[in-house]
């Protein structure tokens, strides 16, 4: 990667960065009692939680650092954090 004019960076390139490797705990989206409130997606500091269907959410394991905010904030306890086997 050539240095351009003192270090310009191209937009949206952080996606190349695999922050999922930081994880100790991984969320499990049970997809049982989900009401589709979207809180999990809103509060994720990585912005890597997303809906596949209206009441079915999942996350991108490439970026999830396993902070557990989605699980802590889920009002219906439909997300569990489990120790990740690596």
């Amino acid at each position, binding site marked *: 990667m050539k240095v351009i004019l003192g270090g310009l960076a191209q937009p949206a390139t*952080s996606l190349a*960065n695999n922050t999922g490797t930081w994880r100790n705990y991984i969320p499990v989206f049970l997809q049982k009692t989900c009401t589709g409130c979207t809180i999990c997606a809103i509060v994720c500091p990585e*912005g890597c939680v997303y809906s596949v269907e209206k009441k079915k959410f999942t996350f991108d394991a490439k970026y999830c650092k396993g*902070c557990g905010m989605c*699980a*802590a904030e889920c009002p219906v306890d439909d997300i569990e*954090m489990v120790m990740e086997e690596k």
Partner: protein
Amino acid sequence: MEKHLFLAGHTACYGCGEALGARLVVDAAGPNIITTDATGCLEVFSSRWPQSAWAVPFIHSLFENSAAVASGVEAALKAMGRQGEAKVIAQGGDGGTADIGLQCLSGMFERGHDILYVCYDNEAYMNTGVQRSGLTPYDSDTRTSPSGKVSWGNRYLKKDMPAIAAAHGVPYIATASVAYPKDVQSKVKKALSITGPKYVQVHVPCPLGWKSDPALTIKVAKLAVETGLYPIFEMENGVVTKVRKIPRPAKPVTEYLKLQGRFAHLFKKGGGEAEVKKIQQIADENIKKYGLLSEAAEKVAVEKE
């Protein structure tokens, strides 16, 4: 994944309130913005060359000049007839805003630039390893305001930035918290609809500096509001026009303090009760000053974002 303007792959800590705050702000603002940022955590974890988490034009220059660089951006857009191209958002942490960057911010306010300044308030210099700032709360334990045999931590009260902004005649001022994401976003949108300087201060917990559970970032942030320690309000043309009411009775500050290691010394050492009382007093004064308590306790308590 959802389409965001502040993207994954950034290198913020687990459960970072500031990363969440920044994403909420730029997503609300939309793609037609130019953002500046002060040196600090946000800049470091979002723009480590050759990567950038920003999908919007972004410039970081120095610790103390985000507001001045934004002033230059805005002046350039004006001078070149490009005002329609982008709104300007200046960003900074609490140190870059209330301490070292205050002079540049004052200049920006005074000159009336059409800029939204967003302060991500995590209440200390986190980028350099948790030292106190002008927005560090009373009794908070930081590396430069440590608790010790003869110290309860930070001796000073939070600098009242909204009042400082108001004294400059800033037409729109708001506080917000990542605990209420939609509120953050609607305030950003409202701010951007107003011409002139705007100031929005977003409370963003820092699990590292606050020594709190990363999973509880939202919970901690919410308690700051529900205890009255972090009043959420809007000021328009110098007058408080809207307040986020908190459930009656307000939660005791201990509920908030106990979740955070930065206040742990208050509960370990003899005499801590008196200090906690002082903090409760700060909350009580906020509640009175801003009229934070709701009329009906239950109604607000169940309000969900």
